[in-house]
């Protein structure tokens, strides 16, 4: 069946990309000056033992590579240098649920608000809602999310004292970081939905629907929406990536104990195994998300579902 062929092709592509990243991180580890993996080895005993166990440092290069690939495949991301009692996996299992909550909430908020805003802007083109929506959109795209975050903190936490500025302990704590993270994607989705909807509304089949005497509500909801949302689904993958990378900075600013915070700390302290492991983990998540989005796209558009050439 053609659908299976398409899935296979995508899976292979995914694996290729993961392999490239794995190789890239492996090469990096060997190449960075002052890294503990080459000849310098200027770390203490305990760490050294961990490293040797994980990376098989006495074996020839190619064997090391294979061991590394194997450990990635089995989701074992290695030890930490700066915190020898912890492995990367420990950090991930602590941080991931928090980051996931933050990221998912932001994503869902951005998607729903963005689509709704975009639809209303398209229907009332050049009206008040359109102007407001597009202004928000332009601001969301132009103002980087970390700056947005500081602005929000400044306004809502410091000056008006409505929302707490940091950590992650109650739902109230979630508001500001999620908002900061969601603004950019919301803006992009709103703009895209708007222009896509406007274009769809000029299509012939919408004219046919009008000639059939359907109400505007029905035309938008039943005929226009599905078609207009296609481009939005397409960029969902990229948006997830930007939310993911955006979370690094947001978590740092708001002192949220998620994966991103550990990642940023590891960058600053040059804890290379953590950097590598986390990078590979992030990439895998992203690639899975991209894959899911691709599948969703295939389901939504019947032309692709039935006729994709494998």
């Amino acid at each position, binding site marked *: 069946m053609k659908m299976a062929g398409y899935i296979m092709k995508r899976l292979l592509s995914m694996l290729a990309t993961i392999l490239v990243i794995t190789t890239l991180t492996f090469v990096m580890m060997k190449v960075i000056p002052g890294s503990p993996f080459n000849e310098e080895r200027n770390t203490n005993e305990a760490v050294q033992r961990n490293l040797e166990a994980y990376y098989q440092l006495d074996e020839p290069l190619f064997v090391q590579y294979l061991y590394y690939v194997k450990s990635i495949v089995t989701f074992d991301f290695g030890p930490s240098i700066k915190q020898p009692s912890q492995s990367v996996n420990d950090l991930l299992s602590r941080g991931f649920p928090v980051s996931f909550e933050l990221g998912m909430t932001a994503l869902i908020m951005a998607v729903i608000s963005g689509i709704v805003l975009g639809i209303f802007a398209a229907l009332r083109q050049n009206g008040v809602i359109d102007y407001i929506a597009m202004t928000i959109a332009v601001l969301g795209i132009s103002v980087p999310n970390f700056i947005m975050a*500081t602005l929000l903190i400044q306004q809502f936490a410091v000056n008006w004292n409505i929302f707490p500025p940091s950590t992650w302990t109650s739902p109230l704590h979630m508001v500001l970081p999620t908002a900061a993270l969601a603004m950019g994607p919301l803006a992009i989705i709103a703009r895209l939905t708007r222009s896509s909807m406007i274009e769809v509304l000029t299509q012939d089949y919408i004219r046919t629907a009008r000639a059939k005497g359907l109400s505007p509500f029905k035309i938008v909801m039943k005929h226009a929406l599905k078609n207009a949302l296609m481009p939005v689904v397409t960029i969902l993958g990229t948006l997830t990536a930007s939310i993911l990378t955006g979370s690094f900075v947001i978590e740092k600013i708001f002192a949220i104990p998620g994966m991103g915070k550990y990642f940023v700390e590891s960058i600053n302290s040059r804890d290379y195994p953590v950097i590598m492991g986390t990078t590979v983990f992030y990439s895998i998540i*992203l690639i899975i998300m991209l894959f899911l989005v691709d599948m969703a796209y295939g389901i939504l558009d019947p032309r692709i579902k039935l006729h994709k050439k494998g």
Partner: protein
Amino acid sequence: MSLPVRTENEASSASDIPVEWFAPLKQKQDERESVARPSLSYWQNAWRILRKNKLAMAGLGVLIFLFIMAVLGPVLSPHSVTQQTLSEQNLPPSMEHWFGTDELGRDVFTRTWYGARISLFVGVMAALIDFAIGVIYGGISGYKGGKTDHVMMRVIEVLHGLPYLLVVILLMVMMGPGLGTIIVALTVTGWVGMARIVRGQVLKVKHDEHVLASKTFGAKTVRIIRRNLLPNMMGAIIVQMTLTVPSAIFAEAFLSFLGLGIQAPFASWGVMANDGLPVILSGHWWRLFFPAFFISLTMFAFNVVGDGLQDALDPKLRR
């Protein structure tokens, strides 16, 4: 003498028309084929549409202003970039220091425009390099077609799957911070977007009739690329470039926030914003405000101009 125009229902009141008017009229032959309105060239038309877009024009004005200030700003200011006057630490904006001073007594106004030079330089360089690599790669891939295209596209597919900022971060960790390394990191995977667009454009235009016409006239490949393909693609390419610059500036600021940016004493807007972040709770808002404002303003301007250009240069929307 002119008579009012009759509707088709006023039959007999046409009696006051002089009989002489019913004589046959001598017409000039060439008048028949005259076209009513003058037509504009592609670029003239695009400029006309762009000019009407007030937002895009405003953005263009902002960009021109920023570039001028980046050059002239440090010259205009009475202070120097690196001069540290410890007695004048952390002063809010005043007549002396228009944007205030930082914790080392340096003038923020002067530093802002120095930072402008760096940030804009990074942005424009990244866009230009992406353009160069992308056009070559995409052009070859699209024009050659067949197996070459297939292989080249597979490579792009894999590269596209890599999360852009993650790769940038990794490379920065690998290479160490610095202006040159940042530009390298940004462009190593950044050209993929441009290559795809160029390839798409080439594929679209390759079989256009005017290309075939040129071929039948015996034009060589280079001439075809120059005169037939390139002008048609320039629109999409320019739009892509105006959208690359803000994403490069954003990436640079992002890197600075993670501590991987440009090192002291040089400061881009990203570095200044990062330095300004911790002191915001102490009330020194100008440290963060000015670089953050200008980052946002620049990105806004480029985005708005890019949008306007997209509207103006899109052949489908030609009016």
